């Protein structure tokens, strides 16, 4: 969060949390997928579900999934535009449990067949939080280049990832570690100050014990 989340963003109305935040969630998912999204099942929770239609939350998320930004005047026509873009989607309601009132779950498929499952929340003033990726709890804003590494919970993976970033002179701003169970599946989330070169990401993917790597680029 910075002061331009307080005064700003410049956006199309009517709601920073229900319209701009929703575009941003969609757009962050688009970046996380790293390729064109062709299918999206969208599950709105809480206030997103109760008042989403009136605020265009559904249209805003679909706009974001196609890569639109929050001040794009085409947001209100996103359902119609999705057809020609090649994005199929469903809008549903769901009770996601004890989460932020403005939360949404997205089941996404990319053009290569890649699947991504995200739970995200719009936390006010257009700011968002990614809360879950593929069933594992995480916590990041998507505002900086972010590396998400799924790995087996074994010694050494943190060092391998940190080593590759050091080689590329990428500074880590924040780092979070999560795991489902001891020795099971674990996730590292690293928010960085610089973009990570694509070859560094490819070399991470090849390391034994690393299940997959997702990278959110701002380029």
């Amino acid at each position, binding site marked *: 969060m910075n002061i*331009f989340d307080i*005064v700003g*963003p410049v956006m199309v109305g*009517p709601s920073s949390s229900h319209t701009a935040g929703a575009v941003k969630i969609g757009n962050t998912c688009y970046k996380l997928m790293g390729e064109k999204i062709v299918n999206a099942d969208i599950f709105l929770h809480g206030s997103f579900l109760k008042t989403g239609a009136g605020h*265009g939350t559904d249209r805003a998320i679909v706009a974001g999934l196609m890569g639109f930004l929050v001040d794009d005047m085409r947001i209100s026509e996103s359902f119609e535009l999705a057809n020609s873009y090649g994005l199929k989607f469903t809008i549903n309601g769901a009770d996601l449990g004890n989460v*932020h009132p403005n939360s949404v779950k997205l089941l996404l498929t990319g053009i290569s067949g890649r699947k991504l499952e995200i739970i995200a929340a719009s936390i*006010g*003033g257009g700011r968002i939080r990614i809360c879950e990726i593929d069933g594992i709890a995480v916590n990041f804003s998507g505002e900086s280049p972010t590396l998400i590494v799924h790995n087996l919970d074994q010694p050494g993976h943190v060092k391998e990832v940190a080593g590759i970033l050091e080689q590329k002179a990428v500074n880590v701003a924040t780092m979070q570690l999560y795991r489902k169970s001891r020795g099971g599946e674990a996730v590292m989330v690293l928010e960085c100050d610089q973009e990570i070169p694509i070859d560094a990401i490819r070399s991470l993917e090849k390391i034994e014990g690393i299940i997959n790597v997702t990278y959110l680029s701002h380029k």
Partner: protein
Amino acid sequence: MYESISAIIEDEKKTSLPFWKLIQRDDCIERDVSEEESFESMKKMYLTMKDCVKNYDPTLHSNSSLVGGEAVLLRKYIESGKLLSGDFIGQVMEKALMVAESNACMRRIVAAPTAGSCGVVPAVFISLQEKLQISDEEMTKALYVAAGVGGVIAIKASLSGAEGGCQAEIGSASSMAAAGMCYLLGGNSDQIANAAALALKNLLGLACDPVAGLVEIPCVKRNVCGAVNAVTSAELTMAGISSKIPADEVFEAMHNISRTMSDTIKETATGGLATTPTGKEIAARLSRS
């Protein structure tokens, strides 16, 4: 961002830098940008606010048709010479309506701090600029002051109606506008903090209860309330009237109130004005159409 107003005032004593400059310096470090880049970004926010007022379209109505043309009615009333609250307040009210209506009609606005409350800061700031002939540069500095206050509120409480009710949106906007206005009137940092405290105190506990869940009723008119409240809070401050509760504690009080507020008045449209007989009738009519 600063976590308390008292930390900003302490830094001011240590560095002798003014309030706005400390917020700018913090932004430069946070986003790794130069002072010029930071200033240009903030100036762009102010100029976009002015564009929104300049491009106000009096013929626009929201999709629901619940909002549109309010600023035109007020303008006619002002021109009739009947407005008792005076020219300046008339200007503030009119601009708050223009910007808030534009938001409901899916025009481009600057969230400050949110879209629902986007009319408050521009209404106070642009009216002041016109009245006192202030430069855009000085207005930009005042916008840093407002942003600094909003940042502290975001950290200590919340800026989201869904989390904190309308106090977190119109209340925060009013507090930010009061702080900025106080700066523009020559207030020092203690006075800026005082104006921010006075403004938010008046709006603590405000429910977020939008009819049919839309940012229209009562949001558009609450922008007028937040803007006028900011003006009176800044003027009370300049008259030497102090808030006995410091700004940081007022922000914390807002957070406490948020936690005890019912979900029915946190943007869910399940309480307050939204569930009045007329509110329900409007919602039913819209869901049929």
